[in-house]
């Protein structure tokens, strides 16, 4: 027996309903993936093109010219690893933030738990990430065999970093999408804000080579509060053996991530029932 009511409390989240629609999530993910690469020659290889070109540009300008890369690690893999994990986070955030507006038509015609939409669009991002990650692994194998980098046991913690990027992006995206059902302004800020955020995270430079950002530096503790930083550090440390993981800040970042996820879901549950009237 289900009841449709005008108002529900703050914590009315239909997790069971979402689970019941897991097949739909799967099919939405598949739809996004298949539809994206139909009638293209390169197909899924396109997933590599963008991070590859970004990495080339970063290695050239930030790495070779400005000298911001990590010592002892080839610039290309350093920037590739940072770019793909950042891209995963940013894409999750973006697609979750737009999940309702871009699917308003279907949401206005049929009911399914609304959380299905941002969840499936976040998971869709995992597919391109997977392809990019395999691409990265190819380089890692080459560089470890030649002894240039030191892939260590922390490599196997990469799923944690991926999971955190996913949850963080989803959480922020859901907060934004809950707020943007009425005002679209925030949506305009998202891509710009992400661009700034990227420079507040160790994507385009090595934080351990910067005196003020490295452990003991005057901005270190502040800088590490950015929840993306510890997860990038973990990812880079595991894959390339460069930098370090500060476990205190790592756990703090998980705390932040879960708080953001919680806020996102609560805000979302507030607008879920009637956002079709305002979207």
């Amino acid at each position: 027996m289900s009841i449709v009511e005008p108002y529900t409390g703050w914590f009315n989240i239909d997790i069971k309903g979402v689970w019941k629609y897991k097949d739909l999530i799967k099919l939405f993910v598949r739809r996004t993936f298949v539809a994206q690469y139909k009638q293209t020659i390169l197909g899924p290889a396109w997933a590599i093109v963008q991070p590859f070109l970004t990495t080339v540009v970063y290695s050239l300008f930030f790495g070779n010219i400005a000298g911001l890369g990590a010592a002892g690690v080839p610039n290309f893999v350093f920037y590739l690893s940072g770019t793909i994990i950042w891209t995963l986070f940013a894409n999750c955030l973006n697609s979750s933030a737009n999940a309702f507006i871009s699917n308003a038509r279907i949401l206005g015609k049929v009911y399914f738990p609304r959380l299905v939409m941002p969840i499936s669009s976040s998971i869709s991002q995992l597919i391109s990430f997977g392809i990019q990650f395999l691409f990265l692994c190819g380089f890692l194998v080459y560089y470890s065999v030649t002894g240039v980098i030191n892939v260590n046991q922390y490599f196997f913690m990469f799923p944690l970093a991926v999971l955190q990027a996913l949850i963080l992006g989803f959480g922020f995206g859901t907060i934004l999408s809950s707020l943007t059902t009425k005002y679209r302004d925030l949506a305009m800020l998202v891509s710009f804000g992400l661009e700034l955020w990227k420079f507040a995270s160790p994507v385009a430079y090595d934080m351990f080579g910067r005196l003020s950002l490295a452990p003991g530096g005057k901005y270190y503790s502040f800088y590490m509060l950015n929840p993306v930083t510890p997860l990038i550090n973990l990812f880079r440390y595991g894959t390339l053996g460069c930098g370090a993981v500060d476990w205190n800040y790592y756990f703090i970042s998980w705390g932040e991530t879960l708080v953001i996820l919680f806020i996102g879901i609560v805000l979302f549950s507030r607008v879920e029932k009637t956002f079709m009237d305002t979207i």
Partner: protein
Amino acid sequence: MDRILKVENVAKEYRLGTIGGATLRGELQAWWAKKRHLENPNVKIGAKQPMDGREKFLALDDVSFELNRGEALGIIGHNGAGKSTLLKLISRITAPTKGRIYLNGTIASMLEVGTGFHPELTGKENIYLNGAILGMTEAEVSKKFEQIVEFSELSKFIDTPVKRYSSGMYVKLAFSVAAHLNSDIMIMDEVLAVGDVDFQKKCLGRMGEAASSENRTVLYVSHNISTIRSLCTKCLVLDHGHVSYLGDVETGIAKYLGIMNEASATDFDFSEKTRRIDTRTTSGVKMISAHLNNKDNNIYSTGDAIDFMLVIQSSKEINPVNISIVNQYVDGVRIGGSISNNLVLYVGENHIHILFPTDNIPDGIYSLEIHVNSMDEDGLNSRLDSVKFAIPYSIQNRVGVYGKDWQHNVYGHSMYRPLVVENVSHKA
């Protein structure tokens, strides 16, 4: 009896006008201007303040009913009566403002044909996707897959992307998925209006079967009286957001036609009727009532003139004005209209004699919408007053030649006559 749906005192309120300033910036500007007692910079100069979202519109008001398993409910009412809003609430697309809806089963709603179809995916992929959107698991779709494909008559094209489909094929595929869902409640909003006639019949048959032999509950909205009649076991008539009748189908249809028809009435009071006019303008002109001359009902034969006296109250003398009349079919479709010669309105009550010709109007139920217009200096018409559904009437021809039992869905809403047909020669 197994109760499956209970709607309890449900109301849905919408705010009129734009909700918010569309952007935060626009709203902040408006707020800042108001603070300084200036005009809102986002409003055209001279225009009235936009509706600020505080004006409310009740799309549904205090609607209650119950449904048992296996019943098929037809929901009828003219445009804007709240039919689609009711279906949206029951299918949980949006929440009611007041009241509660109890659902004791799963719902499949088809408010639109092919919701979520992706043009790049094949028919097969879309069946799975659409089934999942409507609440089925992949395994359930697989079990029904053969049946769905067979019903859709599209087995040859099932591996083709649906962007290559014709619109008819698209509809067939979409309906087939929805018709084979395992839901307890099936909600349909006039989806059968599309697709060819044969397929429409097949769909109706399928829905009837779902209700009678599979014991599923059907909620069906349509303007098409004959499909309601053939499919439904119960009828809900909505009028301006209120339930005006709930019960058996024939009485419901009669009641619905009554809303439009005010059967055998000859006097029409306009005070309760919808006016299509900005009520904030004060033209000083108001249509009060109409009276049919020399009649004891409002039933005509094709070719009769609708002879009536229109009473218009005017607070000033206006010269010239004209009267225009729009003829509407029972479902609200505008069929045609007519504009009168110029006349003068005097201060006080004006009794105006009007003859509206029905030469091209076949059997059916219609209503006249009446406008009073004046000509401004530029020669443009401006509307002084306007009454919707002002005079409902029906055309019932006794002889078969001139459009008795006219099929409106085949021939449209007007009739040309006389059609001259002659067999001028023949060979053995």
